[in-house]
């Protein structure tokens, strides 16, 4: 009995010591890691900051074309009280579907009734890939941050950083993340993704040629229009309409890119017109103005032209709101 008590005492003492020591060590480590993660900002990657800002009353949603091309600052200057926020991501992550709609619902201030919503659309955003069987629950982006990060207003957003941040954590502090062409990449507080290039005409031509080449290959991966995605685009519009005015927007792109997209969904603009009529929203199709703008790579507007276009969109919204 005495031996048993002695063993039990030793066990308790040893274990207590172990737990306390480990606890203190892990607490110090945990705190240090938290301090590092707290430094994450717009330089961290192209998406992180969008999951840290507060809930919003007006949103720009769509692909990277909208993320880079639409400047909330310019729109807000021209549309007083809009307070629009750029919550657009990329072709891969935010085609229309349940994950994006759920994320938008999380990002939107629930009691908003007079918001402005720019819903950028393009053929990729309502298409499915070959071999992709979409249904109400099954979306390829379910496994991405869009499907997994449920809290879209946390700072630091640990779910995002621990699961989806692709760089080394040291880069959160040094702000020297992946930089493909010597460009400046930064997501601003209003959600605008700045891609600032040190370009020459030749470099620009080469990049456009290379992107068009990539998209010809990407096109082969796609099947065509998806009824499920189209239905979710409609659901997204109907949801946003409850909270304000919705504008369906197709951004201008290089004409050669448009030809690739025409092979994906030849009657895309007709489909969008039908949808706009059905949901009673305005479809702003800027494809006829393709040649009026310049692009970084054939489909992302350069900063200067993005500003001009944002101003023009704000003017159109102002006009239609009247």
């Amino acid at each position, binding site marked *: 009995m005495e031996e048993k008590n002695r*063993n039990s005492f030793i*066990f308790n003492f*040893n*274990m207590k*010591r*172990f737990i306390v*020591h*480990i606890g203190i*060590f892990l607490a*110090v*480590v945990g705190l*240090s*890691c938290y301090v*590092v993660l707290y430094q994450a900002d717009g330089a961290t990657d192209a998406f992180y900051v969008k999951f840290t800002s507060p809930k919003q009353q007006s949103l720009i949603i769509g692909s990277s074309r909208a993320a880079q091309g639409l400047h909330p600052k310019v729109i807000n200057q021209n549309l007083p009280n809009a307070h629009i926020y750029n919550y657009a991501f990329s072709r891969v992550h935010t085609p229309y579907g349940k994950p994006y709609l759920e994320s938008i619902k999380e990002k939107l201030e629930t009691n908003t009734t007079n918001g402005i919503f720019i819903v950028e659309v393009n053929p990729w955003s309502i298409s499915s890939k070959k071999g992709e069987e979409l249904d109400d629950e099954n979306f390829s982006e379910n496994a991405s941050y869009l499907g997994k990060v449920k809290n879209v207003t946390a700072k630091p957003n640990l779910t995002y950083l*621990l*699961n989806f941040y*692709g760089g*080394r*954590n*040291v880069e959160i*502090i040094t702000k020297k993340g992946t930089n493909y062409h010597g460009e400046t990449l930064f997501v601003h507080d209003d959600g605008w993704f700045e891609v600032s290039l040190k370009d020459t005409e030749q470099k620009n031509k080469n990049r456009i040629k290379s992107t068009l080449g990539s998209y010809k290959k990407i096109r082969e991966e796609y099947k065509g229009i998806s009824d499920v995605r189209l239905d979710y685009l409609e659901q997204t519009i109907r949801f946003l309409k409850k909270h304000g005015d919705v504008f369906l927007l197709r951004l201008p792109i290089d004409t050669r890119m448009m030809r690739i997209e025409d092979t994906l969904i030849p009657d895309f603009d007709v489909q969008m017109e039908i949808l706009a009529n059905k949901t009673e929203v305005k479809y702003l199709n800027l494809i006829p103005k393709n040649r009026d703008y310049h692009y970084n790579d054939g489909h992302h507007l350069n900063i200067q032209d993005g500003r001009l276009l944002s101003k023009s969109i704000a003017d159109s919204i102002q006009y239609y709101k009247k």
Partner: protein
Amino acid sequence: MLFNSIDFAVFLPIVFVLYWFVIQKNLKFQNALVVVASYVFYGWWDYRFLALILFSTLVDYSVGILLNKTEELTRRKLLLWLSISVNIGLLGFFKYYNFFVDNFVQAFSFFGQEIQPNTLNIILPVGISFYTFQTLSYTIDVYRKKLEPTKDFVAFAAFVSFFPQLVAGPIERASNLLPQFYKKRVFNYANAVDGLRQILWGLFKKIVIADNCAQFANVIFNNHTEYTASTLFIGAVFFTFQIYGDFSGYSDIAIGTSRLFGFHLKQNFAFPYFSRDMAEFWRRWHMSLSTWFRDYVYIPLGGSRGSKGRQIRNVFIIFLVSGFWHGANWTFIVWGALNAIYFLPLLILNRNRLNTNVVAEYSMLPSLKELLQIAITFLLTIIAWVFFRADSVNQAIDYLKRMANVSLFSVPSIRPTFLLVLLFLFILIEWAGRRQQYAIEKLWFRFPRIVRLFIYYVLVMIIFLYGGKEQEFIYFQF
């Protein structure tokens, strides 16, 4: 479940608390918890293959019991072959079926006969090569009467599925691990802290060294025709460190985790890249597999007894089988053959047991001769690893051809400074700790405790800050 995942970081403390606090007083319950935890650990990846582990466990447990009941040689042999057939059969089907079918088809097409292959879409169950070898060692030892068969099914199931080493070893012998399940485990502070230290070092090797090297090695190997010889060389060096960091890191985490639960697993890597010849390298690399092959294949074949010709044959068999164990691809077989060729001169000249001690055991630095020997051995392993990493034998040959070029002496186009600095520090630490079971076992013991703690803190922060993109452990596929 990956050791370097958040899932495991949650799983481990839960099992630890249940093990030591809730059912600490009952050995049977503790063993049962090990089985349940191990099945959860494995099932996290794919629960369907738990049936395979259970089947293998049932077969070998029953064979052990039956072997104990009979002295009749034919019946005993029959039982042994039953166990071998089941385990090797499972391994053969899941790992090698498609390889054999593909090669069969190719062989026929060579002679102008086209046949329709009937390949299957088989998923390779993680760790199958490890646990089948572990259970086989039990049956063979019982057959050889070196081990008493167990009547405790739960203990046996825990031995087969013990989660720290289930999917990538070390391949434990029943004679070492099984008896530990019969005895009450007592929590020991020093052992637990030592276990954590080894886990820390394992994580450093895996997350900082292996995963960062992988990133660059993958780029270089996947586009090898675009790089100069010096870049190809650095790519091969990165892979050399990747595979070491990956596999020995896993072993360290496995051994350290076992210590947290009061178990002692055997050392699996003993600083192989400081070896002075290939024989020493193979005594220090993946020791649990090398000794398994030695005891259950090499020695039954005659080992180093008999004529030189017979010895050479045995060495070739052992290396080819070892290569094939790693994967159903000719690259692994060539890798094995190449290592056999490296080993042969030492065997013929009776110099294969020349370096059995630790290099520079009583000095801080190696002699010039030792340094040269280490460099040559390291270079030979780099060349062999190219076959191991390449997608095909042709790619490996092309890679090596391009590497043997005058541009080998140019500046590599890929030379990540942070990684080269980390590798340099890593080599220094490994060298300083080469006399221990793992590099940092007692490395900083002469410093006050607070300084030591600070060093561990720095290591954790390096892991956190410089950890590469999470990659699966390479040896999971074997």
